[in-house]
């Protein structure tokens, strides 16, 4: 916790993991930061922007990834951030970018949500490093989030591959003490595009050798992993411990608190595995236990390599790991865990314009194909007016599928309900599908346009007419897009000012048998106050 290192100016700060990544990105001279908002990753790009970094929200994670990849192809350092399910959206470029490699360093942050504090699943994105063939770093606290981001850019350039930085809800949102470097980042040299068709144009003739290069590169990184200081052995009191624990990320903190006298092999570079280093550690102790959050992934890999390690019971694969759970794993305790009292669930705010929408959907007896956002809360009492919610944009496709197969009297009740930011993210292709393959009973897409990405903390998107930093830009018009795509009935209503008109519009659309879009436009109460502030600021500048 020293305030000064030898040659560098440093500052002691209390930062979240997200903020720490942003500070490191500034220090690493990242030329462009991109992303799509998603808890728990959102604050990385926002902080990077506030610290003076050039940053943007993209329409979705795939586009954000591709923009970052282009910057890295051009020789610049690029950072792209997303939540775990966002990496599914960006998986297409991820797998082939693993073949192409990068020019400038590229770091992809995957922020996982074990325990699903704010997500539709708790998928374990450590699988992506294995599946795509790219290295993965996992920080345990904000200091490591800072240090590992810097290291990730170095590794990316050293080995010519993008690097996955996997964080979790706890490493993203916990604030811990960090020593950061201060002072101006070095100025980057003028960039120039170096043509490299064999590496960058993935036609089969180029991709076949690229696949071999990828495997060779991973072998080189494996050799690096065996000796690098990202994977560290800690021995309890200096004597050879009888209990050894292999772990990574925030699980290390839980396990260390649960068993302070054990020996630890803490993996920072969690893919590719330093298998010989782990083997040496495992054989040096009487009992070796793998403590990992999420799937039984590391333990499975170690057993496949012939190591004799213990791992957790399946019951601990659901939800977050904790100190209590680490103790139970070490004791082999399978007894029922204490369950917290049910806490008060979240709800739509008083005065939220979505409230009227769900009241009316319920009253009209609609079958609601829902989507991801604040409005997913329409499933809870008192509304209970949502029937499906799967992933970003799924409302439109799922609604169309139902319309295609249900008998007419039921099909006519199906409505796809999607928010403004979600519509831009992945509703556009669904809309095109609706016009291309219209169900016999027509269909109704209801866009709940509250003028912000509310759920993740009021981020801008193309439909708000403002960029990440709230400066004005041309606004994407949902109704113009629908009309030009060939949607037959397009109507804009205010769901709060005139509820009767909103109900009329929806009832007419449902009985019309046509392809319809209703845009229910009314700003989110909480976002509207922020927009007003911004307008006042702009007014002052104009004067």
């Amino acid at each position, binding site marked *: *916790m020293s305030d000064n290192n030898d040659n560098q100016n440093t500052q002691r700060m*209390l930062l979240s993991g997200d903020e720490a990544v942003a500070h490191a990105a500034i220090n690493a001279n990242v030329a462009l930061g991109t992303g799509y908002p998603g*808890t*728990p990753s959102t604050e990385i790009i926002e902080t990077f922007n506030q610290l003076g970094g050039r940053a943007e929200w993209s329409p979705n994670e795939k586009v954000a990834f591709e923009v970052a990849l282009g910057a890295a192809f051009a020789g610049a350092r690029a950072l792209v951030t997303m939540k775990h399910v966002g990496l599914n959206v960006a998986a297409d470029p991820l797998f082939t970018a693993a073949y192409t490699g990068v020019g400038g360093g590229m770091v992809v942050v995957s922020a996982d949500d074990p325990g699903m*504090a*704010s997500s539709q699943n708790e998928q374990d994105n450590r699988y992506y490093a294995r599946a795509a063939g790219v290295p993965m770093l996992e920080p345990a*606290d904000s200091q490591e989030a800072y240090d590992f981001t810097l290291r990730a850019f170095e590794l990316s350039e050293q080995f010519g591959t993008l690097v996955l930085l996997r964080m979790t*809800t*706890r490493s993203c*949102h*916990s*604030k*811990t*003490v960090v020593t950061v470097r201060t002072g101006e980042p070095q100025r980057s040299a003028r960039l120039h595009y170096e043509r490299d068709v064999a590496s960058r144009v993935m036609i089969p003739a180029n991709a076949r050798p690229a696949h071999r290069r990828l495997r060779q590169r991973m072998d080189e990184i494996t050799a690096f992993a065996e000796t690098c200081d990202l994977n*560290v*052995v*800690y*021995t*309890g*009191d*200096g004597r050879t411990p009888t209990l050894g624990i292999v772990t990574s990320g*925030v699980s290390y*903190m*839980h396990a*260390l*608190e649960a068993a*302070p*006298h054990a020996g*630890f092999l803490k993996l920072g570079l969690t893919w590719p595995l330093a298998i010989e280093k782990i083997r040496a550690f495992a054989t040096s102790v009487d009992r070796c236990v793998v403590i990992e959050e999420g799937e039984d992934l590391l333990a499975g890999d170690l057993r496949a390599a012939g190591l004799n390690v213990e791992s957790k019971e399946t019951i601990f694969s659901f939800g977050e790991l*904790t*100190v*209590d759970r680490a103790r139970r794993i070490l004791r082999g305790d399978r007894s029922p865990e*204490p369950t*917290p*009292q*049910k*806490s*008060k*669930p*979240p*709800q*739509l*705010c008083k005065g939220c314009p979505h409230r009227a929408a769900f009241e009316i959907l319920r009253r009209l007896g609609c079958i609601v194909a829902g989507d991801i956002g*604040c409005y997913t*809360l329409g499933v809870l009492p008192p509304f209970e007016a949502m029937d499906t919610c799967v992933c970003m944009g799924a409302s439109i496709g799922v609604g169309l599928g139902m319309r295609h197969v249900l008998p007419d009297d039921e099909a006519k009740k199906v409505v796809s309900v999607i928010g403004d930011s979600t519509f831009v993210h992945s509703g556009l292709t669904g809309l095109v599908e609706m016009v291309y393959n219209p169900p016999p009973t027509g269909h109704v897409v209801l866009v709940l346009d509250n003028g912000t990405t509310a*759920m*993740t*903390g009021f981020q801008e998107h193309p439909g708000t007419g403002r960029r990440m930093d709230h400066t004005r830009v041309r606004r994407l018009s949902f109704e113009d897009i629908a009309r030009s795509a060939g949607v037959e009935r397009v109507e804009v209503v205010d769901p709060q000012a005139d509820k009767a008109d909103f109900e009329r519009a929806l009832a007419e659309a449902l009985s019309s048998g046509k392809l319809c879009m209703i845009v229910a436009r009314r700003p989110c109460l909480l976002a509207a106050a922020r927009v007003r502030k911004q307008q006042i600021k702009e007014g002052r500048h104009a004067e």
Partner: protein
Amino acid sequence: MQNSDIANDAVSVVIAGLGGQGVVKASDILSDAAFEAGLDVKKSEIHGMSQRGGAVTSDVRFGRRVLSPMVPHGQAGFLVALASDQLEPNRWLLREDGLAIGPGEVDVAMLPSARCLNVAILGVLSTHLAIDEDCWRQAIEANLPLAVRPANMQAFEIGRRAGDHSRTRQGDIEK
């Protein structure tokens, strides 16, 4: 390397309340105060869905060295509840000899604004912690805009006096 000096002497505080009550702000102030005092600090809470009026808790731990950012069950030295109905659901987090501080400890009518309740209750908590008053003041300044600082400083003082008063009374009873 050695796991030297792993002290489990960290102070663990759980702050509980409802979305909009300033739970996260209170935990920011507490963790900044401990940070200003030169201690190791970890603070953790869940963002996202819980912002929409639901129950929110935030864990703050500080000491010579803090490991897990989350307070293990039954190990909180202090449970600070900004809403009285959030005391019981979170009591299981409290250590046997831990202290629960509820909104009833402060007379809300005395506060410059009901919105300062979170800072007033931190005032009560502060009388139980070895963190300098200066560190608290710096933390409050760092976390609140200029316009509301005087009201919150006043609320903190009111909470501090309430805390001192109840501690004295407890002392009397023990004697």
